């Protein structure tokens, strides 16, 4: 039986209550929206891309604890990374929350993002955990349309 405490880990609850990098980014040169209308989760991810690297990132919006904490922790994890590094991190994160094996044999590179491992026991919540990441992906590619994981 899946354990609630695995899903709602302290770090997740804490980030959902006090999300980091939660603001509009004045220097943003890329942005994208993620919207899951069935849940009502709705986020905007702001990116300040300098060449190939993420100089700054922020987000705004509202959603469940999982989506909110995921967006918050994502901004911390990808800040300063290159686009390719962020994309690899997303890939690894996706593997984690969908219950797949890690790309390089372990989850080490995920760092704090590993707190989302419990999500894999709750398949209907995968869309919550990945919404901000899909928005980031769209923002990095300069796509305009709103993304959804529903």
């Amino acid at each position, binding site marked *: *039986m899946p354990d609630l405490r695995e899903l*709602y880990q302290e770090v997740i609850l804490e980030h959902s209550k006090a999300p980091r990098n939660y603001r509009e980014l004045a220097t943003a040169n890329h942005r994208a929206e993620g919207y899951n209308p069935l*849940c*009502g989760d709705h986020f905007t991810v702001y990116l300040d891309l300098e060449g190939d690297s993420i100089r700054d990132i922020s987000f705004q919006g509202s*959603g469940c*604890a*999982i989506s909110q904490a995921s967006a918050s922790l994502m901004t911390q994890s990808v800040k300063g990374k290159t686009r390719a590094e962020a994309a690899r991190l997303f890939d690894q994160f996706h593997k984690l929350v969908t219950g797949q094996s890690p790309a390089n044999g372990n989850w080490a590179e995920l760092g704090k993002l590993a707190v989302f491992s419990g999500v894999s026991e709750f398949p209907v*919540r995968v869309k919550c955990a990945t919404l901000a990441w899909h928005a980031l992906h769209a923002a990095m590619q300069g796509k305009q349309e709103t993304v959804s994981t529903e």
Partner: protein
Amino acid sequence: MTTAAKRLPRESRPADVRGAGAGFDVEKVRRDFPILRRRIRGRALVYLDNAATSQKPQVVIDAIRQYYERDNANIHRGVHFLSEHATEEYEAARRTVQGFLNAADASEIIFVRGATEAINLVAQTYGRTNVHAGDEVLITAMEHHSNIVPWQILCEEKGARLRVAPISDSGELLLQEFEKLLGPRTKIVAVTHVSNALGTINAVHLMIEMAHRRNIPVLVDGAQAVPHLKVDVQVLDCDFYVFSGHKVYGPTGIGVLYGKSALLDAMPPYQGGGDMISSVTFEKTIYNKLPYKFEAGTPHVAGAIGLGAAIEYVNGLGMDNIAAHEHELLAYATDTVSAIPGIRLIGTAREKAGVLSFLLDSIHPHDIGTILDQEGIAIRTGHHCAQPVMQRFGISATARASFALYNTREEVDALAEGMQKVREVFA
């Protein structure tokens, strides 16, 4: 007594069905629903998602199984025994629905897939014939998407305008505002009898009177009403009434459009095909009479028979008894849930049925739903296919507990305990 009622095993018949207040043994009723014996995640199932779909009593499951095991044949076609028998069962189900709604004639009962298809049928036939550029269709701010989108499609096509009667902060329709919106350009009114997101019971009889004074026909969406209230389409004098079988203990994929025969007769067919014709040549087709004109193709025979069995079951318990039980339960649930710190009820109309929508602190409804699910408690979270209702209240989602005849006070207590657990997790 009909076939379906005869099939009801003696021990599952209610102790006394003489009328309201005659007693309603909920524990006995629960034994009629096999799924309620299931354990979910190691706990007894507490099913509080009845506004989405209701569970099925054994008599409905048996009726469907018996049809496929013994009676299966196509209807209205064969001269053989089984075809005749299946036809009789199908038409008996239609008469059961007729009695359930107190329609004047069985030919006013059209079997469709559900309330959604029924509304689309009316919009695409009555609507396309009678709504033109500059005309208006009037709905309310508490409609389910299924009573919004078909009218939007129609208005878009015709260059007509969709008007929306507003609701109050408690989720009640503002009747005076509704009446003001009825004008010379209004060609049809479509209104829900009971709101799926708020539980509000609309005073549809008053709204129908107001519309009829101006010769405007009214469609009533009864999907959330028929499981909870006695409906009499002749007393209401509504022009169309629609509902889905699966919300009233019947199978999915079957529903009902009631329409006054004069209106149905004047409407063009919805879909073309077999059974809806009386003769076909390549030059001209003569359409069949009511209700068959609107039932193209082989219908959901097993579904109709299952719905008939469900209605017989509800009739056997007595709608007054069911309504009294549910009314008491909703009052208890409202009190119990209101006592939880941080609760905000969405939908506090004076007249309500079946639905308790709420928010808890700033916890997202999906998180509430996931935690309750771990306790074996099934509720609905999200916008309930009523996004304009959410927008009206400035929220994106609610948690919704919705009740049926088999729910108990103990289940309400389980819900309240589950919500304490939610608060603990998010403390």
